[in-house]
């Protein structure tokens, strides 16, 4: 603005000597420049928004693009002879005998019979690498579930090993020099033979959703992490919701305005801004070292995350309580209700949609949180799907972190797929919060 003023005063000085003409000319000339500045400034603002939107687009396209192949896996159809001599030669039907049987031999016998020309130990070992090393466990579980399979021949779709699966999907190009890729020329030849035989098929990757973690990408899944997240979230919800609502009710409805309540308020605001990893350190020092609670357990993870989401729930709860008009309270008091009855019977039900919205948003934050859980040992390599609050477990974001560190290429698409699943859960939770807000929001 001072520029404008300067221009005007200049013009006034000039006015004395050369008259009105130059003054308007000068302002008109300045106007053009000023409008150009205006346009540029607007463009900068648009560029800022455009950059942010482009970042969102890039992020999602990268994740989705990497994730899509992860939802497919390649299976190979083999005629498997569940030979009685190998599995259970004495016909004892004893689960321990069946569990200990040499299913690897069954897989190999069937697979090698497709390639009668391949002889020699080295070639055969290379050939065997085409099929997943977990195939024998799949067959074992089939027979354990249904012992009547013994003695029959079935067509079973077994997973390809991750490297070949990547090659088949086009992840590893055949043009790269043989020494630079994990698939040899011979394996490619055999794979072509299998393709010509129409033995390969691309199916939806159920393993990803039914299995726990594994070192072999083709056997790894996020079922364990999903269950871990589920148990952790239950603990978080069970702690942060009641405590958060109670604190909000106290601070908003009961608390006198004094030093103590001011201290609590300042504390809550600060806790909301404390880095999440510090909560992990607190959990490690207090819950694990002082109270000797189990490491890697959803119980402890849930407690740490509850402390972290508490400020979110309290702040949202207070806002919701504040939005209930005082006339409701006064009406209840007028009917002889006590303060507590007024709140429980009238104020809280009206504030509930807001409280729930805040809680859901807090839970979504907790579901995506990783750093504090690393501190309390939820980064363990857990193969089994956890079945309780004190079992060793990991959660979805930690699983993403672990897989993103894995050297195998095939883990990239699985990491992206797991990320997409996590984002899916978050979108659902946020959508629920929006619906709650839209549906039950009341304007007084």
């Amino acid at each position: 603005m001072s520029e404008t003023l300067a221009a005007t005063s200049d013009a006034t000085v000039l006015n004395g000597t050369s008259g009105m003409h130059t003054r308007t000319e000068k302002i008109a000339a300045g106007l053009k420049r000023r409008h150009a500045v205006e346009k540029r400034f607007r463009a900068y603002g648009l560029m800022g928004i455009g950059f942010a939107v482009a970042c969102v687009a890039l992020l999602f396209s990268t994740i989705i693009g990497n994730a899509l192949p992860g939802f497919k896996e390649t299976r190979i159809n083999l005629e498997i002879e569940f030979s009685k001599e190998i599995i259970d030669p004495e016909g004892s039907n004893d689960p321990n005998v069946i569990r200990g049987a040499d299913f690897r031999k069954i897989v190999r016998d069937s697979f090698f019979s497709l390639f009668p020309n391949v002889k020699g130990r080295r070639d055969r070992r290379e050939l065997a690498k085409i099929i997943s090393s977990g195939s024998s466990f799949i067959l074992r579980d089939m027979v354990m579930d249904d012992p009547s399979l013994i003695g029959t021949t079935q067509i079973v779709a077994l997973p390809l090993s991750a490297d070949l699966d990547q090659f088949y999907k086009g992840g590893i190009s055949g043009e790269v020099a043989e020494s630079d890729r994990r698939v040899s020329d011979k394996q490619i030849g055999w794979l072509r033979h299998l393709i010509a035989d129409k033995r390969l098929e691309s199916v939806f990757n159920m393993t990803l959703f039914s299995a726990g973690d594994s070192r072999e990408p083709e056997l790894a899944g996020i079922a364990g992490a999903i269950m871990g997240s589920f148990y952790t979230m239950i603990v978080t919800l069970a702690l942060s919701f009641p405590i958060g609502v109670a604190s909000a009710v106290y601070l908003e409805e009961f608390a006198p305005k004094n030093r103590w309540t001011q201290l609590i308020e300042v504390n809550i605001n600060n806790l909301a801004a404390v880095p999440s990893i510090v909560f992990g350190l607190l959990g490690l020092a207090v819950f694990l070292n002082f109270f000797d609670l189990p490491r890697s357990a959803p119980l402890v993870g849930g407690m740490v995350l509850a402390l972290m989401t508490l400020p979110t729930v309290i702040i949202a709860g207070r806002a919701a309580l504040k939005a209930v008009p005082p006339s409701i309270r006064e009406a209840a008091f007028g009917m002889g209700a006590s303060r507590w009855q007024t709140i429980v019977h009238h104020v809280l039900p009206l504030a509930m949609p807001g409280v729930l919205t805040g809680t859901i948003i807090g839970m979504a934050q907790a579901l995506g949180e990783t750093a504090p859980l690393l501190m309390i040992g939820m980064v363990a390599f857990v193969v089994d799907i956890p079945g309780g609050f004190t079992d060793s477990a990991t959660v979805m974001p930690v699983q993403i972190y672990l897989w993103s560190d894995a050297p195998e290429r095939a883990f990239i698409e699985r990491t992206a797929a797991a990320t997409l699943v996590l984002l899916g859960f978050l979108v659902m939770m946020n959508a629920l919060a929006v619906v709650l807000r839209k549906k039950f929001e009341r304007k007084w």
Partner: protein
Amino acid sequence: MSSSVLLLVLAGLTVVGFYLGRSRALASVGGKVRDLHSLPGYYGYAVALWCGVPSFAVFVLWSIIGAKTGHGAPGYAGFAVIIALAVAGLAYAHRQIRPDMKARDGVERVVRIVLITCSAIAILTTVGIILSLIFESFRFFEKVSPIEFLFGLEWSPQTALRADQVGSSGRFGAVPLFAGTMMISLIAMMVAAPVGLLSAIYMSEYAGPKLRATAKPILEVLAGIPTVVYGFFAALTMAPLFRGWGEQIGFEVASESAIAAGLVMGIMIIPFVSSLSDDVISAVPQSLREGSLGLGATQSETIRRVILPAALPGIVGSLLLATSRAIGETMIVVMAAGLAANMTANPFEAVTTVTVQIVTLLVGDQEFDSAKTLAAFALGLVLFCVTLCLNIIAFSVVNKYREQYE
């Protein structure tokens, strides 16, 4: 008998107590509720509280003390004592019931205490954080002097298994970590501050309702994405991208360069800057805008010469809050920044940060008296203090600003 069975028994007794208390209260006045001091349910709650609270408290205390002293959970004798306590509480409260007993006042007093306790958990958490950080840091400073920690230039926390091994002592000079943290936060702020501010200005001053309705949620999406996803994105896309560009112009870029981590962190904090600044800019009184426009200033002149100076304290506050966010951010740097503590001013090299070192020192099994693990708590203490200071300054600046226009 396991603890869960005991808890079930206690819960059952409590429910029984509620119904017994209520029916006794009703019976004492022959069913005429108006003769009671409180509603009959309150007598039930009073009995239930007498039955459940003391016995449950004893159970919890007993379990904790048992676990600490190595005796484990309470045995059969302990269970018997706890159940007897519950029954005694039930019987005592049941006998107390008279029509003029002030059951509601008593119950509401207990409820109030519960509410106060719940709201005190926020304070307990803060106290717990401070105490645990200070306590463990003191143990660390017994082994390593605070001067070396705060001003030492070399960070190599590997402590050897044998005392006579070469380089067994480990060096705990944290300056390279502070430098790395500052560099990555600075890069992040260089991305987030202009983008966030410009979009906030555009949204609050120029954008029509339609653009606002679409752009705002998109920015909020950035705030809702978990940090581990940003870390994955940084490691998968950004780091190779910068490396590729570097190779094309014959320039060495580390695969875990500070610039990739900083850039992605900047993207992450754009929504913090933009939403906070948006609030602050919207809070500038309309009269200032109208005055400036009335004097003939263009809209951008009004924004740059009137609104931004008026909103400056609030904007500074929001930038400080965003910086504190960047300093404390963990997953992006763990996944995309380096582990080696380099002292460098080159953003294309790998640097490490305070949070990365906390994670690497504490992940995995470790005994709890080595300087290596305790160092993580000292780093945590520094991190907590720095972010706390930034937050307090930011909050007070924003509050003072808000009062100015109210």
